[in-house]
C-alpha cells in the first residue's frame, strides 16, 4: 500500500478517536443546562468527563499536526479556506477549557452559572461546526488552482448549504446521544434513569437525521460503491443504539454509538477518496491524496512514530478509563470546594 494512502487511513483513525472520545464530552457539555436540575447534578455531569476530557481533546491537536506533517497542502488549503469557521471553533474550545477548569475555583452561583453558559457555547458550536466542515469535504468546495496551489476561494458562506447544515445537525444529534448514553453508563441513581430515558429519545432522532444525511451523501456525492459498507454499518449500529437504549443496556448502547461515529468517519473518508478536498467547480481542481502529501521520507518517519506511539497512547488512555470506571452517585459529589470570591480566610485570628 502506498504510504500516503496509509496516512489517509491514519487520519481517519485520528479523527475517529477525536469524534468518538470528544463526542461524549461535547454531549455532556451540551446537556449541562437542559439535563441537570441542580448544582449537584451539574457537578456530577462534569465529574463524569472530568479526568479524561483533556486527553480526549488532544486527538484534535494530533489530527491537526498529522495533517500538517503528512498532507501539508491539505492543511494549508483547508485551514486557510475554513478560516472563520475554524476561528469560531477555536473560540468555543478555548472558553470550554476554562469553563471546565475554573468553574469550581470560586464558590459563587453567578460565577458558576456564567461558566456553565460558556461551557454550553463551547460544546454546541464545535458539535455543529465539525459536522458542517466534514460535510463540505464530502460535498466539495470552491477550490481553484492559483499559481499552482490549490486555494479555497469561496470564503465562509460558500461552506453553508442545506447539505452541510444537515451535516452539522447530524453530528450534534450523534454527540447528544453519545453524551446521554455515556451519562447513563457512568452514573447511578436517579440521574442514570433520566439519562437512559433521554438516550432512548435522542437515539431515535439521531438515527433519522443521520440516515437522511448519509443516504443523501451516498447518492449525491459518492462515486464509490464501497462507501455503502460503512453506511450500512453506521445504520445498523444506530438501530442497535435505539434497541440497546430501550433495553437499558448502557454498555452496548455506548459501544454501538461509538461504532456508528467511527463508521460515519469511514463513510466520509471513503466518499472523499482519492481526493482530500474535492472541488465543486471543476473535478480537475480537486486536491488529491497524491497531490497533497508530503515526501516519501517524511511519510516513512511519521509512519514509524505513529505506529509506535498510537498503541501506547490507546493503552494508557484505556487504563485511565479503567481507573475511573466506577459509577458516580449524587452522594459522592459532595459540596462545593471553591473559595469565596472576596472574603478571605481571616489569617491573624487562627490559633495554632
Amino acid at each position, binding site marked *: 500500500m502506498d504510504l500516503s494512502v496509509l496516512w489517509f487511513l491514519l487520519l481517519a483513525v485520528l479523527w475517529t478517536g477525536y469524534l468518538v472520545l470528544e463526542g461524549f464530552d461535547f454531549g455532556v457539555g451540551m446537556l449541562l443546562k437542559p439535563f441537570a436540575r441542580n448544582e449537584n447534578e451539574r457537578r456530577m455531569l462534569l465529574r463524569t468527563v472530568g479526568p479524561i476530557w*483533556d486527553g480526549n481533546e*488532544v486527538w484534535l491537536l494530533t489530527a491537526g499536526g498529522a495533517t500538517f506533517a503528512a498532507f501539508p497542502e491539505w492543511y494549508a488549503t483547508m485551514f486557510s479556506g475554513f478560516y472563520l469557521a475554524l476561528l469560531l471553533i477555536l473560540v468555543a474550545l478555548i472558553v470550554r477549557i*476554562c469553563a471546565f477548569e*475554573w468553574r469550581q475555583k470560586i464558590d459563587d452561583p453567578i460565577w458558576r452559572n456564567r461558566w456553565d453558559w460558556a461551557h454550553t457555547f463551547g460544546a454546541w458550536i464545535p458539535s455543529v461546526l465539525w459536522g458542517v466542515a466534514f460535510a463540505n469535504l464530502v460535498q466539495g468546495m470552491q477550490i481553484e488552482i492559483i499559481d499552482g496551489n490549490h486555494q479555497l476561494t469561496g470564503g465562509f458562506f460558500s461552506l453553508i448549504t442545506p447539505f452541510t447544515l444537515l451535516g452539522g445537525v447530524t453530528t450534534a444529534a450523534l454527540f447528544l446521544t453519545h453524551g446521554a448514553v455515556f451519562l447513563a453508563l457512568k452514573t447511578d441513581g436517579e440521574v442514570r434513569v433520566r439519562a437512559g430515558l433521554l438516550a432512548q429519545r435522542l437515539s431515535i432522532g439521531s438515527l433519522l437525521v443521520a440516515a437522511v444525511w448519509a443516504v443523501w451523501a451516498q447518492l449525491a456525492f459518492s462515486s464509490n460503491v464501497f462507501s455503502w459498507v460503512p453506511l450500512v454499518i453506521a445504520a445498523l449500529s444506530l438501530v442497535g443504539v435505539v434497541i440497546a437504549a430501550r433495553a437499558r443496556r448502557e454498555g452496548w448502547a455506548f459501544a454501538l454509538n461509538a461504532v456508528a461515529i467511527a463508521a460515519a468517519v469511514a463513510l466520509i473518508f471513503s466518499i472523499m477518496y482519492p481526493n482530500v478536498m474535492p472541488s465543486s467547480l471543476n473535478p480537475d481542481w480537486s486536491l488529491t491524496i497524491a497531490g497533497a502529501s508530503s*515526501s516519501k521520507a*517524511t511519510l*516513512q518517519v511519521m509512519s514509524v512514530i*505513529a505506529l509506535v506511539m*498510537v498503541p501506547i*497512547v490507546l493503552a494508557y488512555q484505556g487504563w485511565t478509563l479503567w481507573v475511573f470506571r466506577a459509577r458516580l452517585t449524587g452522594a459522592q459529589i459532595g459540596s462545593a470546594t471553591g473559595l469565596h470570591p472576596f472574603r478571605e480566610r481571616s489569617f491573624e485570628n487562627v490559633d495554632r
Partner: protein
Amino acid sequence: MEALDLARWQFGIITVYHFILVPLTIGLAPLVAIMHTLWVRTGSERWLKMTKFFGKLLLINFALGVATGIVQEFQFGMNWSEYSRFVGDIFGAPLAIEALVAFFLESTFLGLWIFGWDRLPKKVHLACIWLVAFGTTASAYFILAANSWMQHPVGAVFNPETGRAELDGVQGIFAVLTNSTLLAAFPHTIATSWLVAGTFVAGISGWWIVRSVKAGRTEEARLTWRPAAYIGLVAMVIAGIAVIGTGDAQGKLMYEQQPSKMAAAEAQCESTEAAPFSLLTIGDLSNNCDSSTRLLSVPGLTSFLGTGHFSGPESFLPGVNDLQSEAQARFADQFGPDQDYTPNLMVTYWSFRLMIGLGVFSAVLALAGLWLLRKGRVTDSVWFSRLCLLALPMPFLAASFGWIFTEMGRQPWVVAPNPANPVDNVYLLTQQGVSTVVPAWSVLTSMVIFTLLYAALGAVWFFLLRRYVREGIEPEVPTSEQLPGQPEPTLSFAY
C-alpha cells in the same frame, strides 16, 4: 494595514500570550512533583500542604496554557498557508510528534493526578505528576525543534519540481532533531522556565514567610513556607547559572548562523572589531544609526558575546549595513534590488537588553532570600516581602522579551537562510508565507476576537491566582473527612 502586518501582529500577540503561561507550567510541574515526592518520602504534612497549594496554582495556569496552545496548532494553516505549503514536509513532523509523544502524556496523566488521589496507589499517583513534568518538557523540545529549523534550516533539500523544502531522506529528521540551534535553545528555554517557576515559588513563599511571622505564626513560616521557599531558591540558582551558560552558547551560534540578528542585538550598523555593548541608546525609532547616541558602553562586550574575543581580529563583528548589501547582492534575482534585510533595530536592541536586565530581579531575590533564610531563620522584613512581589512578574517579562528578540531578529525571513548551505534555496521571506486567500478583514476580525478574549481570560487568570495565593494554606490539614469507600478525593481538586 495589510493582511501581512495583521497576521504578524496576530501571531505575535497570541504567541507572547501563550508564552506567559508556558514557562510557569514547564517549571512548576517538576517543582510540584518534587514537593509531592518529598511528601511521599517523608510523610510530612507540610509537603502535602505545599503540593496542594502550588498544585492548585499549577492547574489554574495549565488550563489557560492549554486553551491558548490550541490556537497555535491551527494558526500556521490559517494565516500562513503559503509558509505551511513550503515547509510542511519538515515543519509538520515535530508538531505531530509533539502531540503524539507529549500532549497526550501531559493531558492524560494530569487528569489522573487531579482525580487519582484516592483511586491510585501512592507511588503510581506520584508517577503521574512526574509524567506530566516530563511531558511538558518534551513538548518544549519538539516545538523548539520546529522553531529552530526556521532559524537555521537543516536536514532539508529544495525540490525544484514542487518548489518546496523537503526532508533530506529519513536521516533528515535526525538532523532536524539534533539541530545545533535546537540544542542551545532547548536548555535555554527550560532553564528560563525553571527560573520563572523558581521565582514564582520563592516569591510567593517569601511573601508568606513575612506575613506569617508578622501575624505571630512563626511556626508556620518556619516549618512550611521556608522549605518551599528554599526549593524555589535552589531552583533559581541552578536555573540562573544555566540561563547564563546556555545564553552565551546561543550568542556564539547566532554569530555564525544569523549574523544580522547578532548585529541587531546591539543595533550595530558598521562592521567593527571589538564591538561595544551599550546599556542605553537615545535616538529616533527608524533603522537609521546616525541618529542615535550610545551611553554607558562596555567595550568589546558585544564582540565577546558573539565570538568569545573582546578585541583583536577575531572579535570582528559584521554590521547590519554590510550584511544588508551582502544580502541584496545575493538575492537580487529573486527579491529585487530593494528588499530590506534588516530587522527592526529598536525592537531587537531593547528586547535583548530587557531580557538580560529583568533577570537581575530574580538574582537579587535569590541572594536576599538565601541570606535572610540562612540556617533555619525566618524574617519579617517588609522590604523582602515587597521584593518578593516585585520579582514575581519580571522573569515572565524577560522570557517574553527573549522570544520577541529571537523572532523579530530573524525578520524579514520566516525561514532564515542557513549560511552553511548558501545555495540550497531553503529560505522564505515572511511576506511570501502569508495566506493569499484570507482577506485582511478576516485576519483583523480574528485578531480583535483573540485579543479581547485573551485579555478577558487573562484578567480571570490573574484574579484566580491572586485569590488562591492570598488564601494560603489551612493552618492544619483536617484528618480525612471521608467515609470509607467514598470515591471523592481528599484533595479537593475536583471540578
